[in-house]
């Protein structure tokens, strides 16, 4: 009887068989074993019920399979990229390439070649529209893995807005800060700016736990803490742009930094081990900031309308301090991972 049932399971759609075939056989087998212990009447009842239920279930699953195939052809499903696929990689690295490397490369080319204004505007719109569209699609799809850097992209912008809104220029600490040694001054000032990312990140996790619509995203974050690291990795492009603010001829260093970030992201998507995934992100961020620091030092030492009280050494060190703060923030997912899960807390509260 069990062999006949296994044979009949062949009538289900292939995908369904692969997904549930073993379970169906195991449950059917246990039903038979239990019924046999009760008596032949019960056994006959189970067999009859199972055989009668099969045609309807087979038809139902074929219809469901057809519906799924139809749905797969919809626009949104084109962005359901398989983990590790080329499309997922391209989508995940777009913030580093479309927001970072390519516009910078284009700006670098337009410095030496005369490019009509309308082409410049068209390219800028194309880059922005692509990143914005992918951001909205990723958000609508409840935050797949490739969407994580997109989520991190606006975080430094929010941090900057909050910093400007919250910091009082009349604050008594500022004059004291100006009198402090330069390294301490830089460390505190940049700390005030970047540490706003810590409550912002915690708020992001808290909101995803509390808002039912975002709960699947929260579960994914808690199942794989490196996803939050990937979110924070997405803040690096904007941090780099801010770092090179007011610089001239910075494009080669900026492009190299963006490409390093993209390479780190690519390694992340290919790594299986969470520790390795975290390390490639941490390493990618460190290396890209080091390139920025060296680039700024070289540019500052060259012919450039620089301010007198800054030196190439101070530019290098200030970028390293910026990296130190970002690196500290990158450690946040490790700490959040140690906290109890929201669903466990609510269950124990119910208990």
């Amino acid at each position: 009887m069990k062999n006949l049932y296994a044979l009949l399971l062949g009538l289900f759609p292939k995908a369904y068989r692969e997904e549930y075939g073993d379970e169906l056989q195991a449950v059917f087998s246990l039903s038979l074993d239990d019924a046999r212990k009760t008596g032949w009447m019960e056994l006959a009842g189970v067999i009859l019920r199972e055989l009668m239920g099969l045609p309807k279930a087979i038809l139902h699953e074929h219809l469901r399979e057809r519906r799924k195939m139809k749905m797969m052809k919809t626009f949104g499903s084109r962005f359901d990229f398989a983990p590790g696929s080329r499309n997922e990689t391209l989508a995940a690295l777009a913030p580093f390439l479309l927001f970072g490397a390519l516009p910078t490369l284009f700006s670098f080319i337009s410095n030496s070649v005369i490019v009509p204004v309308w082409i410049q505007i068209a390219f800028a719109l194309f880059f922005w529209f692509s990143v914005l569209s992918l951001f909205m699609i990723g958000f609508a799809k409840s935050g797949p893995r490739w969407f994580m850097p997109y989520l991190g992209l606006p975080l430094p912008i929010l941090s900057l807005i909050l910093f400007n809104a919250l910091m009082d220029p009349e604050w008594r600490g500022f004059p004291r800060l100006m009198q402090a040694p330069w390294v301490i001054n830089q460390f505190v000032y940049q700390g005030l700016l970047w540490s706003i990312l810590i409550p912002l990140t915690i708020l992001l996790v808290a909101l995803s736990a509390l808002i039912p619509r975002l709960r699947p995203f929260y579960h994914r974050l808690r199942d794989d803490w490196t996803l939050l690291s990937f979110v924070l990795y997405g803040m690096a492009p904007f941090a780099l742009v801010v770092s090179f603010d007011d610089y001239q001829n910075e494009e080669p260093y900026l492009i190299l930094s963006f490409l390093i970030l993209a390479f780190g992201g690519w390694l992340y998507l290919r790594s299986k081990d969470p520790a390795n995934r975290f390390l490639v992100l941490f390493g990618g961020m460190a290396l890209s900031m080091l390139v920025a620091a060296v680039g700024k030092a070289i540019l500052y030492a060259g012919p450039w309308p620089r301010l007198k009280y800054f030196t190439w050494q101070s530019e290098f060190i200030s970028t390293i301090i910026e990296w130190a703060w970002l690196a500290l923030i990158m450690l946040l997912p490790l700490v959040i991972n140690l906290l109890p899960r929201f669903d466990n807390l609510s269950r124990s509260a119910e208990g």
Partner: protein
Amino acid sequence: MSTDPISYLPLTEPTFYILLSLAPGKKHGYAIMKDVRELSGERVHLSTSTLYTAIGRLLDQELIERLSDEKQDAGPGLPRKFYALTDLGRRVLEAETIRLEGMVREARLRLREDGV
């Protein structure tokens, strides 16, 4: 997929019992099948294929989720796949229970009136 529990109502009797069976915690397929039988007072007997058709639909509706627990042994001969209620599934079950309570309450009132 709608997040409004009301949009899933009314539930069919087997669906209600499957969700109810998962209310205390995760279960594998055969445990759900036995529990449904017990909860319904031996009235609802699900065949394996009917159970898994319902499970497939509930997974699509995100009312339940499929868990693969390698640490926990489901039992001899059983695959290590478990099913658990999602938050939405629990809210749907609660909404259906409230709906049924209301129906029973109204029915009792009317029957009492008729008796008088």
